[in-house]
């Protein structure tokens, strides 16, 4: 019963998020509105952490399985993939390394500058 109630709260936030997606004319998916709503709910204690964390942890721990159906969808868009397979591979790989280096260097610089000041 406990988990059912927790899931109901998470689903309610998801529903509110879909309403927001419908009203707000921005290219933002409902799930992102929901994430922000939930975070605000937790910070303001409108939603107490212990009222959602059991079901939420279960969903987050198993989130990978939720992507399988859409990944299998690749069999329905082989043509689109063929048209961009090389750019897709190159861009995915190269930018990952660039982002890693820039993020690491910038935050390391800020941390060390702060440490030097202190």
């Amino acid at each position: 019963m406990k988990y059912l109630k927790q899931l109901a709260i998470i689903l309610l936030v998801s529903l509110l998020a879909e309403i927001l997606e419908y009203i707000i004319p921005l290219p933002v998916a409902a799930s992102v509105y929901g994430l922000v709503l939930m975070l605000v709910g937790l910070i303001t204690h409108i939603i107490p952490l212990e009222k959602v964390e059991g079901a939420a942890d279960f969903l987050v721990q198993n989130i990978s399985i939720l992507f399988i159906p859409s990944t299998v969808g690749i069999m329905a868009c082989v043509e689109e993939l063929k048209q961009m397979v090389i750019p897709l591979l190159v861009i995915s790989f190269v930018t990952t390394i660039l982002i890693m280096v820039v993020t690491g260097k910038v935050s390391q610089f800020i941390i060390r500058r702060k440490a030097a000041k202190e």
Partner: protein
Amino acid sequence: MKEFITQSVYFGVVITFIGYEIGLLLQKKFKTALMNPLLIAAILIIGVLVLLDVPYEEYNKGAGYISFFLTPATVSLAIPLYRQLSILKKYPLAIFGGIIAGVLTAMVSIWLLSLGFGLNHEQYVTLLPKSITTAIGMGISDKMGGIVTLTVVAISITGISGNVLCEAILKLFKITEPIAKGLAIGTSAHALGTAKAMEIGEIEGAMSSLAIVVTGIVTVLSVSVFAKFI
């Protein structure tokens, strides 16, 4: 009999669960990011569907019930983020500075490379959200008119490269602060990278999982601007 089984809505759900379990077993056995349960499951399921001559639409009649939980699961990402808010308050500049720099690098480099490859708008917005968590990335791709499935593929390739290469790259570029290491991994390689960050250390793991959600949100905002460039 075959038609009866494959047309049942439970068929899609069951083969998805079985595929994922096999993926998890292989990952445990070989302990390498190349053995990604999501990819293994997808390859096995496609194999089964092709073998049984079941079209994707029929599989998805059942498997669609799994996708139903994507929005609630993304909403639930707020819970781990909430638990880490104290770290966020302690190092706001390093965290936001690093992540914003990383997201801008992502946007600019994907834009320039897409120009170089001569990609069209649909292909470009398919790749724009490639470094963030699948849950948020799929939403962005869909909203912008990208090919959601290929976004998922790009996100998986990104995560696997990040997971496999991060230790060598961070060492090569002398990124040694645990906070900076965690942020670098989470911002570039989302949850798959974070799995490795957790092995490296506790601070690295916490920073990396914090970076997943913050990067996702910052990317949502930046994509709406960058999507107009091609």
